[in-house]
């Protein structure tokens, strides 16, 4: 039965999420909905619902969460996290879900593009000659166009 499957999966996925830094307290959620009621994204887009996401974690709905678009809609404003009466770090838990989604190959293109730029340049925008010219004209100091130390630090181990 579908219910049994969810029950089996639930312990598994919630435990996996709870191992991520910042997501440890998700088990304390009693579904009061303060998060969803406070959410500024939800006000303009009802497709986003943090309370439902936390429930889905507990129900073990891993695939729906990690492959879906919803986790990418969080604006990381921390309003829900500040207000949660149970101390659930909801914003941090969403970050944990995103990290898991990326590890399983479900990163939206914009997100992986940003990660690649930072790993290869140490900055989101490399400061090219054009930028340096503009900065000089505005009387602003020279900065590293790309940051070697950061690139080296982010090199993935083989």
């Amino acid at each position, binding site marked *: 039965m579908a219910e049994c499957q969810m029950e089996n999966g639930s312990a598994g996925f919630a435990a996996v999420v709870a191992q991520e830094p910042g997501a440890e307290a998700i088990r304390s959620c009693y579904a009061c909905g303060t998060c969803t009621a406070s959410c500024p994204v939800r006000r303009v*887009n009802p497709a986003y619902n943090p309370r439902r996401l936390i429930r889905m974690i507990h129900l073990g709905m891993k695939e729906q969460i990690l492959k879906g678009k919803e986790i990418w*809609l*969080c604006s*990381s404003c921390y309003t829900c996290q500040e207000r949660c009466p149970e101390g659930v770090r909801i*914003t941090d838990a969403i970050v944990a879900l995103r990290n898991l989604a990326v590890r399983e190959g479900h990163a939206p293109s914009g997100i992986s593009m940003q990660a690649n730029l930072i790993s290869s340049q140490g900055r989101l*925008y490399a400061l090219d000659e054009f930028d340096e010219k503009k900065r000089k004209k505005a009387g602003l100091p020279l900065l590293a166009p790309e940051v070697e130390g950061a690139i080296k*630090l982010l090199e993935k181990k083989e």
Partner: protein
Amino acid sequence: MKYALFLGCTIPARSRNYEMSARAVARKLGIELVDIFDFSCCGFPLKSSDSGRAGLLAARNLALAEAQGLPICTLCSACTSMLAEEAHMLRKDKMLLAKANAELKKVGLSYGGNAVVKHFARVLLEDVGLDRIRKAVTVDLKGLPVATHYGCHYLKPSEIYDGAEDPENPFSLEALVEAAGARSVEYEHKRECCGGAVLVADEETALRMAKRKLDHVKSAGSKVMNVVCPFCSVMYDDNQKSIESRFEADYGIPVLFLPQILGLAMGFDRKELGLNMNVVKTKSVTEEIVGGN
């Protein structure tokens, strides 16, 4: 008062007006800003993909400032929260600090866990003080009606800022613009998010969030909006025209960075504050105050 100025990625490339005005105001108030050539991205844009590596990038920046013995002064709110969060975590978790140091060693750095991270607005409020700002005012802003926008990461998560300000009831930005002679305007949903962080995933949602706020700022009769983060500026300034056309609205609200407003009160001219680089024309603001010099 000496700080390592942390610019991050967006400001040096896309928001030079913020940087120019902050440097000008700092000079005027006797704040020395030291540039660390080798600062990188703060780590924030990497957080969604890999929060561990994002934290490592933040730790590297903290270590560079600590090596110079300088507190960090940030301009971008996302940089502020990313760096302050990492500093907070490494201060309370020695295991994590040891792990970060094992990685930092590979690039010839070590971190003792003592970096201090402060947003420019907080430096002004806490280290310079409102009195000295009032004394530096030479141009009467004549009660210019300003809608302050806090954004999110300047205040939250509050635990990483050691309770510097209550995110449900903040006051610092109103206090700063009023010290400069402007009038802070109350408006609905003042504490709400700009939507900037949703832009990559869902443009429509992000723009709708920004629109809600612009609607309230306009109906409250504010003539200027004040921001302290380049992402908030992207939403309200860079995207104001596209919000107007997409939702058939009409705003024409100049969006100024905090030091641009303070700088006007301190007698800097438009060019020195980069006011010609704001997307929504800012002439109306300067005309109102000083006859548009």
